[in-house]
């Protein structure tokens, strides 16, 4: 076996040259492209990371905005609920006030109507009582006229005697010029009583006093002295009316 040292040397050099050639024409260009692509990929990764970060920021901003919207919505709802509750409370208070006013008005009206009805009932009762008394008394009025004629004259004379002088003078003045003094009774007085009345009245008002007698059945009993411009009432009708008035005054005062 022969070993060729020139071949060994040439093959060594050949390999070195081939390594340089491949490095120059194969590895370098390919690695340059790979590096460029890797740089591009890294750049795209960086861009993607930036885009992702930006997207995350935007998502966070949107989330924050959404939470703000939710909070705002919550606040608006709360304010609206509070406003509605306030309005409802106001309306309820107003309704309660109106209801209370209506109730008070109704009670007042009811009380007034009740008082009015009571007063009317009382008045009816009084009128009924007065009417009943009038009817009962009218049945005995004829007898009373005979029995009580002198007593009624006595009451009239007592009244005239008790009158203050100016008033009595004023009465006398009304009939001083010949004007008649009209005596009105419920029933016709007996003749004897009529003379007694005329004498008694002329005694008080003067002997020239013209005295006439009339009958008014509404008076029930008693008599009335009709002067030209005033009347002195001593009838039971007047007494009953005064009694009714006193009862009304008493009820109203109560």
């Amino acid at each position, binding site marked *: 076996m022969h*070993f060729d040292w020139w071949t060994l040397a040439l093959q060594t050099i050949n390999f070195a040259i081939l390594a340089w050639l491949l490095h120059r024409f194969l590895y370098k260009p390919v*690695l340059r*492209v*790979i590096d460029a692509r890797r740089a591009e990929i890294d750049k795209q990764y960086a861009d993607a990371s930036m885009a992702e970060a930006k997207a995350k920021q935007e998502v966070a901003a949107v989330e924050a905005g959404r939470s703000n919207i939710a909070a705002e919505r919550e606040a608006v709802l709360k304010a609206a609920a509070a406003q509605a509750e306030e309005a409802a409370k106001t309306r309820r208070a107003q309704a309660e006030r109106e209801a209370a006013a209506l109730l008070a008005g109704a009670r007042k009206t009811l009380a007034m109507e009740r008082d009015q009805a009571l007063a009317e009932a009382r008045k009816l009762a009084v009128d009924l009582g007065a009417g009943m008394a009038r009817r009962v008394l009218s049945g005995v009025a004829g007898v009373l006229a005979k029995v009580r004629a002198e007593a009624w004259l006595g009451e009239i004379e007592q009244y005239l005697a008790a009158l203050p002088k100016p008033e009595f003078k004023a009465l006398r003045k009304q009939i001083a010029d010949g004007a008649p003094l009209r005596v009105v009774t419920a029933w016709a007085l007996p003749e004897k009583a009529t003379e007694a009345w005329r004498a008694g009245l002329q005694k008080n008002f003067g002997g020239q006093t013209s005295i006439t007698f009339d009958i008014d059945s509404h008076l029930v009993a008693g008599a009335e002295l009709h002067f030209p411009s005033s009347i002195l009432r001593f009838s039971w009708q007047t007494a009953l009316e005064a009694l009714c008035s006193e009862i009304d005054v008493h009820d109203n005062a109560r």
Partner: protein
Amino acid sequence: MPSSPISSMVMFHLGPIAITRPVLTTWFIMLVLTLGSLMVTRRLKQHPDRRQAAIEAIITGVMGQIEDVIGKDARPFLPLIGTLFIFLAAANLSGVLPGVEAPTGKIETPAALALIVFFSVHYFGVCAQGPLGYLASFAKPKLIMLPLNLVSEVTRTFSLMVRLFGNVMSGEFVIALLVALAGLFVPVPLMALEILVGLVQAYIFTVLATVFIGAAAGAAGRA
């Protein structure tokens, strides 16, 4: 005429230098590889086509292998180790072509490659650890290991050379014998096997060279 079939045939002389057939074949392979490199790298694009993707896959695959073995950036080692693999694959497969003898079937070419690996191991070892640090690594893990480490530096280089030479030369011999004995088409399966053996030997040589260089550069332990 060569005295032995395993000796290199001298084709012509350039002065005192005898140009043998393996050298001529190597030049041819260098020409093909250089022109091929120029062609495939002529229009490299950011978005690769199939051709560019295949080239990038080969180179990145070689770099991945280097990084797996050495554990460092593969770029400083790529011109040596990548060229070793490409040249060995091309040289081993060239024997399949009719009338072409694989340069690695003659002892001088594997010896030249083993010699390059031998000096490269020391070069990268010194670069990585410094002269003294690299020399001190021969005495590890114990000083008594120094002679064995020194011997192993030679023997493993020698084994690289012999393994490659023996496999390629024996394959060519078997094919030549079968062609002579059985005819033209009988050795075709063995030629396919020879292709596989050629690629495997290129891979083994390259990986062993990478392991040696990585051991020297990283001082992870002597191979």
